[in-house]
C-alpha cells in the first residue's frame, strides 16, 4: 500500500524523519540532518551514496553502479531510491564521514621522515607580526565632563581611545550611540570599548560598562572544500587555545567546487550551501568556546580563509560565473561585515573578515598560505603549493608573485580511487611492499583497514614501482604469477589487503585506473609548476624554497613524493611543510593589522594565469606522465636508485 507520508529512520545514527512518498533517500537524509557521502551531488554518477534498506520498501531504478551482490543484499543508491513506505536505511561506513583525522593546525606535529626539515614552529618565529588584532578591547576611565570640558560623550570616548592608540578615523554605529549617554553615566565613566577594524577605518562596535577587556577572543577558520577547520585565539595575548576540524557539510551537495556551483544555481541551492557551512562554523565555535568555558559573546571576531567559491558560498554570493568562461568571480575582496549578517553566532556586534583572493581559482586560502609561508619576506625565489582538491601554485619572492591553479583533481584525497578514502580511522597511510609482493602497512587508529588515504596511495606508487608491480608508465605487470596481481572487473589490479583482513566486504585493491588517476594528478601539479617557471624564465633549480600546504601536505612523505614525480628533485632541505597554511595565515590576519595589510597587498600583487590556455602545457603534462618523469635527467637522485627493482 502506498503511503502519503513515510517515516524514514537512518542507522547507525538512529535519526528519523517524515517525508512525502516519492522523496529520495538522499533528500530525506538532508532533511534529517544525516550525512551521506554523495560525491556527484545526486547526479546518479558516482555510486558513493549506497545505503542498505533494512526495512520497508523503496523504488529503486536499475543501476550499473551497484554490483549484483550489493543489490541482492539490499543496497540502493540514496540519490535514486524513492521511499514508498516507512523504511529503515543503514548508511555503510564508507558513505559516512567517520572520525576525521584532520590536520587542524600548522602547529600540529607533522608527519615526515625527512631529516633536517624545518618545522612550522621555526617558520612562525620568523613571521611574528606586530599584534594588533582584528578586534580589540580597551578599558577606559573617562574624565567626567564639566563646563570647560564639555565635548560630547562620543568625542570623549574617541579622545581617550586616542590616548592609547592614535587612531585617526573612527566611526560608531547609531545603535551604540543611542546607548552611550546613559551607559557611561551608569557605569561611573568606567567602560570597555570594543574596536573593530573594518576596511580601513576603526569602528567602536560595542561599549560595555566596567572592565571586560579580558574577554576578547577570535576564531580563525579555514573554509576548505572538504574540511572546515577552526582555531580559537585569545586576541589579547595571541595564544591559541584550541583547534577543531570537521567535514564541510556541503559535501553532500557535491564533492568538488564545480558541482557545488551547479547546485548553488538551483532553487534554494545557494541558501542551503550557505547554511551548511555556517552551521559547520557555528558548531566548531560552540565546541571550542565550551571547551574553554567561554561565552559566545566573548568571541568578537572571525577571520576566514577559503577558496573563492567557498567564500562566495559563505557570504551567500551566487558563484555561478566562476565556472563559466571567462571565469569571473563576483568579488575576490569582500569587506569585513558583522558576523551575524551571515548567521555566525558570536558576539552580535562581532566582525567577520575573509582573506582576499586573486581570481576564480586562486582564493584567499592560497593568499593566506603565501602569508604563512613567509615567501614574501625573502629575496630568494620560492614556490608555494596548496595541495587541496585542486592544487594551486604561487611562484615569487618579495617583489612579485604569479599564481595558477592546476586541475589536479581530488585523487590524493582518496576521491576517484576505488579503495580511496580520506585520512581517517581505517585508512592505510604507510605501506612497504616486500620482495614477494606481500605488503606491510600501518592503519590510522590501529583498526582493521578500510581503504587507502592519499599518503598511503603515494607510498603505494613508490613501492609498486620499486617492486616492478608497475613500470615507469604506471602499467601493472600482466606477466606476474603472484596472486596479488590479478585481472579484476575493470582491468588489472594489485590486492593490498585480502577481504579476510579488511573491515569491509571486499578486498582492498588498487586498480589500473586508480594508478592512471594518480599519475594524472601528479602530472598536472608538476606540469603546472614547470610551466609557471618556464613562463617566468626560471627552472626548478632556481627555486630555493618549496612550501607545501594543505591537508594532504601534512601527511606527505617528501622522498616518496619526489620518486613519484609529484615534487621536483630538489635538495630535500628546500622543502618545507606548512600543514594547514590557510588556517595559519587566517590566524595571523586575525591577530595583526600588518598581516591583514599584507594579504591585501599580496592578492593585488599576484598575477594569475590560466594554465589550460598556456602553450606547451599539454606537452609538459604528457612528459610528466611517467615515473618520475619522461626526462629522467630532471630527477638525478631518483635515476641513481632506479633499475634494480624492475623485475618485469
Amino acid at each position: 500500500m502506498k503511503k502519503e507520508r513515510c517515516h524514514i529512520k537512518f542507522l547507525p545514527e538512529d535519526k528519523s524523519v517524515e517525508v512525502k512518498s516519492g522523496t529520495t533517500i538522499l533528500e530525506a537524509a538532508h532533511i534529517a540532518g544525516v550525512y551521506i557521502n554523495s560525491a556527484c551531488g545526486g547526479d546518479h554518477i558516482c555510486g558513493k551514496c549506497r545505503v542498505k534498506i533494512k526495512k520497508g520498501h523503496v523504488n529503486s531504478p536499475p543501476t550499473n553502479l551497484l554490483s549484483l551482490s550489493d543489490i541482492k543484499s539490499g543496497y540502493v543508491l540514496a540519490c535514486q531510491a524513492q521511499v514508498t513506505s516507512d523504511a529503515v536505511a543503514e548508511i555503510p561506513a564508507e558513505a559516512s564521514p567517520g572520525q576525521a583525522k584532520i590536520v587542524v593546525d600548522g602547529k600540529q606535529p607533522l608527519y615526515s621522515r625527512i631529516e633536517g626539515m624545518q618545522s612550522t614552529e621555526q617558520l612562525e618565529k620568523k613571521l611574528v607580526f606586530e599584534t594588533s588584532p582584528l578586534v580589540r578591547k580597551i578599558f577606559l576611565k573617562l574624565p567626567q565632563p564639566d563646563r570647560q570640558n564639555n565635548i560630547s560623550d562620543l568625542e570623549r570616548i574617541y579622545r581617550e581611545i586616542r590616548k592609547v592608540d592614535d587612531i585617526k578615523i573612527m566611526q560608531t554605529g547609531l545603535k551604540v550611540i543611542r546607548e552611550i549617554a546613559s551607559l557611561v553615566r551608569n557605569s561611573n565613566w568606567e567602560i570597555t570599548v570594543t574596536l573593530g577594524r573594518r576596511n580601513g577605518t576603526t569602528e567602536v562596535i560595542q561599549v560595555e560598562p566596567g572592565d571586560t577587556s579580558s574577554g576578547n577572543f577570535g576564531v580563525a577558520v579555514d573554509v576548505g572544500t572538504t574540511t572546515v577547520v577552526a582555531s580559537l585565539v585569545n586576541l589579547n595575548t595571541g595564544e591559541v587555545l584550541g583547534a577543531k576540524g570537521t567535514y564541510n557539510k556541503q559535501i553532500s551537495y557535491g564533492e568538488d567546487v564545480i558541482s557545488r556551483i551547479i547546485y548553488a544555481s538551483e532553487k534554494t541551492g545557494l541558501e542551503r550551501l550557505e547554511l551548511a557551512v555556517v552551521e559547520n562554523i557555528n558548531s566548531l565555535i560552540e565546541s571550542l568556546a565550551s571547551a574553554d568555558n567561554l561565552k559566545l559573546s566573548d568571541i568578537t571576531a572571525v577571520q576566514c580563509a577559503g577558496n573563492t567559491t567557498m567564500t562566495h558560498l559563505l557570504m551567500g554570493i551566487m558563484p555561478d560565473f566562476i565556472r563559466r568562461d571567462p571565469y569571473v568571480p563576483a568579488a575576490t575582496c569582500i569587506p569585513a561585515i558583522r558576523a551575524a549578517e551571515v548567521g555566525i553566532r558570536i558576539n552580535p556586534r562581532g566582525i567577520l573578515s575573509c582573506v582576499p583572493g586573486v581570481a576564480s581559482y586562486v582564493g584567499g586560502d592560497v593568499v593566506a598560505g603565501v602569508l604563512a609561508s613567509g615567501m614574501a619576506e625573502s629575496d630568494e625565489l620560492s614556490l608555494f603549493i596548496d595541495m587541496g582538491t585542486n592544487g594551486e601554485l604561487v611562484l615569487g619572492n618579495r617583489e612579485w608573485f604569479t599564481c595558477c591553479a592546476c586541475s589536479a583533481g581530488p585523487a590524493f584525497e582518496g576521491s576517484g580511487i576505488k579503495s580511496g578514502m580520506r585520512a581517517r580511522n581505517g585508512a592505510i597511510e604507510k605501506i612497504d611492499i616486500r620482495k614477494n609482493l606481500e605488503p606491510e602497512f600501518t592503519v590510522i587508529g590501529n583498526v582493521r583497514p578500510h581503504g587507502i588515504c592519499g599518503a598511503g596511495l603515494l607510498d603505494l606508487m613508490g613501492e609498486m614501482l620499486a617492486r616492478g608491480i608497475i613500470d615507469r608508465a604506471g602499467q601493472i605487470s600482466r606477466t606476474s604469477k603472484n596472486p596479488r596481481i590479478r585481472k579484476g572487473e575493470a582491468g588489472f589490479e594489485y590486492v593490498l589487503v585480502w577481504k579476510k583482513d579488511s573491515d569491509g566486504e571486499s578486498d582492498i585493491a588498487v586498480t589500473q585506473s586508480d594508478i592512471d588517476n594518480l599519475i594524472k594528478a601528479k602530472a598536472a601539479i608538476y606540469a603546472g609548476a614547470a610551466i609557471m617557471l618556464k613562463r617566468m624564465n626560471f627552472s626548478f633549480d632556481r627555486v630555493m624554497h618549496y612550501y607545501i600546504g594543505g591537508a594532504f601536505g601534512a601527511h606527505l612523505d617528501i622522498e616518496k613524493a619526489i620518486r613519484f614525480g609529484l615534487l621536483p628533485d630538489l635538495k630535500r632541505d628546500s622543502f618545507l611543510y606548512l600543514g594547514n597554511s590557510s588556517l595559519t595565515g587566517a590566524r595571523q590576519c586575525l591577530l595583526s593589522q600588518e598581516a591583514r595589510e599584507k594579504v591585501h597587498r599580496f592578492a593585488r600583487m599576484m598575477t594569475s594565469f590560466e594554465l589550460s590556455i598556456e602553450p606547451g602545457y599539454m606537452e609538459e603534462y604528457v612528459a610528466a606522465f611517467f615515473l618520475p618523469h619522461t626526462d629522467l635527467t630532471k630527477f638525478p637522485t631518483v635515476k641513481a636508485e632506479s633499475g634494480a627493482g624492475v623485475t618485469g
Partner: protein
Amino acid sequence: MEILKEKSSLRINEVLIGAGKDKGGTRTSAVTIGGENCLPFHLFEGEMPNPPKTAMEIWDMKPSDWPAALVKPFDDVMDSPAKWAKKCVEQYGAEIIALRLQSAHPDFGDAGADKCAAAVRSVLDSVGVPLVIFGCGNDEKDNMIMPKCSETAKGENCLMGNATQANYKTLTASCLADGHSIIGETPIDVNIQKQVNILVTEMGFDAKKIVMDPTTGGLGYGLEYTYSVMERIRSAALGGDSTLSMPFICRAGQESWRAKESKAGVSERPEWGDEAQRGPAWEIATGVPLLVAGADLLVVRHPESLAGLKGMIKHLMDKQE
C-alpha cells in the same frame, strides 16, 4: 657568403636487420639503417652513411579490403606468404620483406601461434632478404603469437613489432631471448616515444636495437602532424638526447592505401583519374615527406611505389655540390 652549418652532438643509432650464416642466421643479405649525424638529406652538414631503405609489406593471408589496383600486382601469390615474398624480392626488387601476421587478429581469422609461426618459417625459407615481422595489432593475440614467431626466427635478427606503451613486455622479452631488434610504436607523441624507449631498455634491451614507429598519418590524413613530431624527435636526438636517437620506421603503404583518394575506383570518381596510377602516386606522395622528415625505413605496398620511392631516395642522396 658561408652557409651556417649545424653540428649535431649525437649520431642516430645504426640498426642492423638480418643475420647471415656467419652471425647465426640464414639471410643472404642484411640491411643497416640509421647512422646519420645530420637532419635528413642535409648532406652539407653531416653524413647519412646508410641511405633510407624500403621494405615491401606482405600479409600471411589474402587481404579482403585492399583495392583492386593494389591486389593486381600480387593477385597470383596472395594465398601464400612465401610466394608473395618471393615475388616481391625477385620481381619487384624488395630489399626487405615486412610480414604482417594479420590472420591472428580475432576479426580476421583468429589464427593461432603455430599457424603464424609456420608463415614466418615459410617466408624465411623462400627469400634471403631480412624480415620485419608485425603482429596483428591486437595486444592479447600478439602476446600469444609473437613469442612463437620470434622463436621460429631465432638468430635471423629480424625487426619485430610493435611494442607499445601499454604492451611491450612480452615482445621485448621475446626479442631479447631470440636476438631480434624491436619496433617501439607511439601515437605521434615525442614524450610517449621517449617513454616507450625507456620502458623497453629498462627490461635490459639494448637501446641500439630499437627502431621507432612514430605512427604515420597518410597524406591528407594527419601526415603533417607525423612530420612535425618526427622532426622534433630527430632534432632532440641530434641535439644529444640518447633516449630518442633511434632510427624511424614508417608504414607509408598502410596509411596511404586507407585513403579514399587512393582506393576509390575511376567509375566512382571519374574526375580523379585512373586509380591504377593514383594509388601508387598517393603512396609515393606519402612516402616522400616521411623521408624528408627522417624515415630510415619505409614500408610500402605497391611495386610502383617501391620503385618510385627508391628513385627518390637515390635522387635525394645525390651529393648536393
